[in-house]
Structure formats: C-alpha cells, structure tokens
C-alpha cells in the first residue's frame, strides 16, 4: 500500500484537504473542534454517500460510499462515541456484520467465540466473549471496538479520539496494540487532542483548521508551540495559566468524611470506601485515578445523583451537616456539577442555548408563577458573553455548536445557579485547545471569587497545572493526597496503581479484583 490522496474543493465542512498515509505509520490529525477532522474520517470510512475529491488506496482510485464497502476495502474506523450494542455479547459485537456461518446458514457460535477470543487476545483483553458488553467498563469497551475493527482484513485504521475515555495506564495498552498493528503494515489515522500522546505515538501529523488543510509535519521535528499555533491560527502564550495560591486558612467549604457508596455491577458503578475529601473556599482540588477508580462516583455521591440510600458518610457544607439527597437538593444548597458525558447527561441537544443554560436556575426567574423571559434572557446573555460562548445567538440549537462551546453552555448552566461549590467531571474532554485555555481561565476566575472547585480529569498535566491539591483514588479508596509542591505525574500514577496494597487490606476488594480478572 502506498497511500491516500484526497481533496474536497468547495465544500463548507471540508475544503481541499490532502492526506497521505503510508503503510505502517501512525498519522495524527490535529485541529480544534470543528476543524473537520471527524468529517474527514467519516469520508474515509464511507459514512457519507457523496463527497468530492478522490481517494486512492494502494495507488488505485477507490470510491467510498458506504461503511460496509470501506470495511471490505480494509478501512476500519473507531468512532469517538462507542458504537457497541450494550445487550449483545462481546463476541456478537466484535463480529457484528461478519458472523461466521455454518453450511446450513446458521451462525456458527463456536467459531464465533473462538474468533472473538483470538481478537480479544490481540488487543490484550482477557474477557469472556459471552459476557454482555453492558457489563464491561468503558476502557474495555474501547478495546472491544478495536478488536471489532481488527476483525476484517485491515489495511487502514482510523481512530477518532480513542483515548478520550481512557486513563493513562489504559492508554499505554492501547498504544502497545497500535504498535503491533503498524509493525504488521497497517496504516493508522489517529485523532487526539492530547499533544503529549501524539508525541509518543505519531510519526506524522497533519493540522486542519476550519475545514481547511494547514500543513503536515514529521512528528519528530515538530515542536508543540508551532503545532498549537497552526491549529489556532494565532500564537498561544501558555496553555496553562499560572494559578494563584490559596491561603491555607481559608474556610473549608465542602468536607466529605468516610464517604461510602455501594457499588452496582449492572450499571458499572464503582463502590467507594471511606473517602475523605475537603475543599476550601477558593481552592481547586483535583481527583486523579484510573478509569473505575471512583472519581466520578465521588462527585456524584456529593451531588446526590445516586439518591440518599446508596451513600453513607458525613458531608458538611461550610461546616453545616448536609445530606446529599438529590441533584435538586444539591443545587438548592449551592452545589453545581458539570457531568462527565456532555451529550448524555448535561444537555438537551435538540433545544436552544437559552433553554439549556437556564434549566437549572429557572427558580430564579420565577415571577407570578411564570418564567420571566426577559430576566432569563438577560442573565443568559450575560453569562454567554462572560464565558465567550461562540454561538449565532441564544436561540441557536445547542447540538449545532462545537464541543468546546457546548461545554461552555454546560458551565453557563452551572454558573447561573450561583454555586459556592463547583464539581467538574472531565471539564475539558473533547474540547479544543483554545476552549480548554478559556475553561482553565474560567476556573481560576471562579476560584479567585471564592468558589470551591472539585475537579476530575484524566489528563495529569491539566491537574498538575490547575489544582492546589490532588487527591488520588484507586478502587474507591483514597491512596494519596498531594500538595501542589509535591505532586508529580510519577507520584500520582504510583498512587493510582496502588492496587496491590489495597487488595491485601480487605476481602471486598479482592472479590472485586477476581470478578474483573475472570
């Protein structure tokens, strides 16, 4: 295989983009959200019936008109959003559309299981192929997607932000799989917002901006500032602004002691065991840990998202005991949460910016039993301007905005409730570099105004730069608490993988581990 040439003149979403991918190379696509990376990949994987320009595969022009056709040509794609059927088994999912059949036309269950087991082994997963996908964790599901893409005779693999849901250790595993693939001569097109990752895995990088082609560089010779400059089209001073330090005697806003949550295998909810966390006014505290360490669960427990019965422990707000009963209760007491999954948990995508932004704060705009639309509009306009949400107007449908701007609408929704404690779960996931910097600036501004911020992130540099203190979780327990001075990536990772020591301590942990290993 020699490569792919391609151009699309005169299309709004994508115009005149060139991309040459060689066999055995990892080619990164970089660009802000809305730059056209996903569109380009969708064209390559045959998701659109028509496009302009030409695609050549191994020197021969090909027309890509359906995902099935692309798959037969050896082009596989892993989408940003997982596309597995939750209630079907792992094997059924991996071989969906390519089920081996017996001579009588029945699905050959045994061959299917064997084939799936081989593919799972290829991606380094030890799972029972008969297990339903619903019971697998997100990271496992991501690797199952990869196994699914491998099921055909693969020549080109396209990965759209495969690591956005993974913690660092799982990213390593994914990279190992990618390296074995490239060694076999597979060409990989790789999209990610994490520059550190690209420096490690990518050979070449192509930058897109506003649907146009900006340039291609060899990854080895590219420096980070130059790439960011190419992406945003303007030089960006420093990605992470310097934080202001907080006085150690500031009052404690939120304190959770012996926070315990019962686990739920059906929904994949991690159990929490005696988690102690506190956040002072004006402080930004980070929660670090691997996938399934219980970071999200800590936020959700405090926010009351799991209901009053599943959570035990003592929570105080400004020293006053508080029982997390429901999100409604939490909001009334000055808490606000930016949930992990923007599309599924935070936004009514089909409705307007204004509807979404004011949803949690409607009580404020109540007048004579109705919503005072003028006051609502003023407040939303103000917040949209303050957060610099780029939208055609507050009546624009949220689903049409880019990821970064959607996230800012979620932030606007939280801020309109005037929270004194802000819980952020992966606030910069799937957000482009420019918007990320703006979100960091917003966090700093809020902290300066005295808001207590508890934040979960899978990106360690982000936590290190932003947080005054970092609490590390592993399997639902706190394994380290590091000040900004003593926190390093290595120490965080060591604490996050302190699984062994935890295991010998309680029997409950061990059974969990066994279940997982099976």
């Amino acid at each position: 295989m020699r490569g792919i040439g391609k151009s699309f003149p005169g299309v709004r979403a994508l115009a005149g983009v060139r991309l040459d991918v060689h066999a055995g190379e990892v080619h990164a696509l970089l660009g802000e959200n809305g730059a056209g990376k996903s569109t380009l990949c969708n064209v390559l994987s045959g998701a659109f019936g028509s496009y302009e320009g030409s695609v050549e595969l191994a020197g021969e022009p090909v027309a890509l008109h359906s995902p099935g056709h692309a798959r037969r040509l050896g082009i596989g794609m892993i989408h940003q959003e997982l596309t597995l059927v939750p209630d079907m088994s792992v094997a059924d999912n991996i071989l969906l559309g390519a089920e081996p059949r017996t001579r009588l036309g029945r699905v050959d269950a045994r061959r299917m299981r064997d084939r799936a087991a081989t593919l799972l082994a290829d991606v380094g997963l030890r799972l029972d192929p008969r297990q339903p996908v619903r019971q697998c964790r997100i990271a496992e599901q991501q690797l199952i997607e990869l196994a699914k893409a491998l099921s055909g005779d693969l020549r080109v693999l396209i990965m759209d932000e495969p690591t956005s849901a993974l913690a660092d250790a799982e990213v390593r595993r994914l990279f190992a799989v990618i390296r074995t693939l490239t060694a076999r001569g597979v060409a990989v097109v790789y999209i990610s917002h994490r520059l550190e990752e690209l420096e490690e895995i990518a050979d070449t990088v192509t930058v897109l901006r506003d649907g146009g082609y900006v340039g291609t560089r060899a990854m080895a010779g590219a420096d980070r500032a130059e790439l960011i400059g190419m992406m945003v089209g303007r030089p960006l001073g420093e990605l992470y602004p310097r934080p202001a330090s907080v006085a150690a005697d500031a009052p404690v806003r939120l304190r959770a002691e012996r926070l315990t949550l019962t686990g739920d295998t059906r929904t994949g909810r991690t159990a929490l065991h005696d988690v102690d966390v506190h956040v002072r006014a004006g402080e930004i505290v980070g929660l670090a840990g691997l996938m399934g360490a219980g970071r999200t669960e800590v936020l959700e427990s405090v926010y009351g998202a799991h209901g009053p019965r599943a959570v035990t422990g003592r929570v105080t707000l400004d020293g006053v005991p508080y029982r997390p009963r429901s999100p409604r209760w939490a909001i009334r007491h000055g808490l606000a949460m930016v949930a992990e999954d923007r599309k599924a948990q935070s936004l009514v995508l089909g409705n307007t910016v204004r509807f979404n932004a004011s949803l949690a704060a409607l009580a404020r705009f109540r007048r004579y039993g109705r919503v005072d639309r003028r006051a609502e509009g003023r407040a939303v306009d103000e917040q949209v301007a303050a957060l610099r949400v780029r939208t055609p107007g507050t009546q624009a449908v949220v689903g049409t905005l880019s990821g970064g701007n959607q996230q800012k609408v979620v932030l606007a929704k939280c801020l309109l409730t005037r929270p004194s404690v802000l819980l952020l779960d992966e606030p910069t996931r799937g957000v482009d570099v420019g918007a990320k910097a703006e979100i960091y600036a917003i966090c700093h501004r809020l902290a300066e105004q005295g808001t207590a911020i508890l934040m979960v992130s899978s990106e360690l540099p982000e936590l290190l730069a932003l947080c005054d203190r970092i609490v590390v979780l592993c399997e639902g327990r706190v394994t380290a608490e590091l000040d900004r001075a003593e926190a390093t990536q290595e120490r965080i990772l060591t604490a996050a993988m302190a699984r062994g020591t935890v295991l010998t301590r309680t029997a409950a942990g061990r059974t969990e581990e066994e279940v997982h290993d099976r």
Partner: protein
Amino acid sequence: MTGDATTATAEGPTRLVGWRRAVSLLGSLQGYIGLVLVLAFGIVTRGGTFLSQSNLTNAVGAFASRGILAVGETLVILTAGIDLSVGSMLGLASMVSAMLLVNQNLPPWVILPACMLCGAVMGLANGIGTTWLRIQPFVMTLATLSVFRGIDRQLSDNVSVGTQVAGADGKLTGNADSFQLFGTPGHNLFTGVVGAGVYYPVLAFVVVCVVGQLALSQTRFGRHVYAVGGNEAAARLSGVNTDRVKIAVFTLCGLLAGFAGPIDAAYSASADPLAGTSYELDAIAAAVIGGASLAGGRGSIVGTFVGALILTLLDNVLGLNAVSDNLQLIIKGCIVVVAVVLQRPDLLRGAADFVRRVARRGAPASTGRSS
C-alpha cells in the same frame, strides 16, 4: 454540524441564521399548510355546505372531547411517554358522570369536578406505575386501558345510561337540563361569540388549549416537561425532579380525560360503556400531526390544536363528499405519514439541494452540508 457553527460565526452569521430560521419556520408551518389545504379542499368541493355554521359546529363539536384528550396526550408525549388509556379514562368518566346525574341527581357543577378527580386518580395510577414501578409507559397504559374499560363496563353492567332524565311532569329535570349544556345540542359555533349562548364543548377545548400552551411556554413546569423529554439524565442532574414531572403529566392527562368524559356523555346524550374506544389513537394522531415527536422534547399544544382541527375537518370534508368510511381511514393514515415527513427540516433541505442541483445541471454538483 460543528463545522457549520464555526463557519457561521466566521463568515455570514446573519444570512445563515436567517435562512435556518426560515427553514425551521417552514417546518412548524406545515401544520397550517395542511389546515389551509383541507379548508381549501372543503370550500372548493362543497363551498356553501362546508362553511355553514351548523356544519362547522358539528365537525368541531364532535371532536372536542378527543381534542381535549389530545392536549393531555401531548403533555405525556413531550416527556417521551405515551398514554394509551385516555380513551378508557374518558369512557369511565363519562359513565361516572351519567350515573351521578341519573342515580344521585347531582348538579353539573358537582359532577364535573368529581369526574376530573376520578380521571386524575386514574392518571396518577399511570404515573406511579411508570415512575416508581419503572414500567414502560406503553406497557403500563396498555394495562390500564384494559383495567379502566373493565371497571367502566362493570359499573354500567354493559348498558348505556341516558342522560336526558325526565321528571314526573315529563320534562327534563333541572339538573339534566343543565347537564346538557356540556354538549349543548342546538347551539352554534359562533353564536356564542355574539352572545346568544356559548357552545361549551368547543369553548372548553379552546380554553384547555390556551391554558395548556401558556403552561408549557411560560412556566417552569413547562420547561421541565421539555427537558425531561429532551434528555432525562440532563434534566435530573439539573435539579429537575423527573419522577414528579412524569407523574404530573400523567395525572394532568387523566384529569383532562375526566374533564372530557361528561362533555362526551352530554354530547351523545348518553354514556355508552364503549364510549371513547380508540380515542387514544385520534389523540396521538392529532399530537403527531401537530409536530410532536414520540421521542419526546418536541411539540406544542398549538400544534396539537391545529392537528386536531385537521383531523376533524378532514373527516367532515370527506364525509360531505360521500367518501366511503374505508377510504377515509386510508386517507387519514396517509395524512399522518405525510405530516411526520414534512416535519423534518433536513428532508426539506435535502429536497432543496436536489432542486438546486437539477436547476444547475452542468455545473459541478455540490454535496451540500456533509454534517
């Protein structure tokens, strides 16, 4: 779509937004287009008869009780639920109203709230089943459709109850006479406006629509209804008590069915044990023609009102033209399909692209928006 948003701000925001607004307006206008078409068809084929007061009165009056059901149904559909039991609730409420009148000789102003309460209790049962017991709305209301109808038939012993009760002097009793007002036979649609008397079924329908629309667009409850239907998880995390909203819409739906019951009984001058059978289908059809999405979060009472008018006037026009019942059913079904297809702006956009491409044949073809 992400690409569009960036380009919109970069190049020509006003032009693009204006165009988009026009497209979505077209999407919401399709209901009126349908209404205009039906009216035009009626006027062209049966001008005088169709437009006569008595005809319009009959047409709308006959549909009023179903229209009220459709309003409640819309509330439920907006939360991504469905209520199949509205017809049975109406039947039971109409039976209760007739029996209260005949057996207890109660005045209408007592009967009406009693029936509404009765409906609200039934709706509450639906709501509790779908939230606390986590039964899917379709299944829960399919079950209660059967249960409520059974209670209705048990109460009446499968005999219909006439509401025109004569006193000892051979005339209608006072209460029966005033009960008739709910159905108001003999009044005309527009005489009420002029002052000679109000045509209550239609007035009730219009009032229910106005109140419903205001509640949806102006109040916090209305916003919450849209949020629960649009994204339940997001609504819950935004502090909306989603269970309470769902119970509320089911209860309101039952309450409206209870309200429509006496109107239906008075209109037909008797409560039939089978009254209201398959009304739920008309109610759902009206909501859908009016732009409601069964996936929730999209639709309005105004739309449902227009949808109900289309259905009733279409019935009327086809009847006036002596189209057979069988054919009427086929046409009504097709109308639903056409209405739903027209509501999708992306389809209109695709069609527009196609037209443009055909018009510009020879020039390089454009793929349009690839989002």
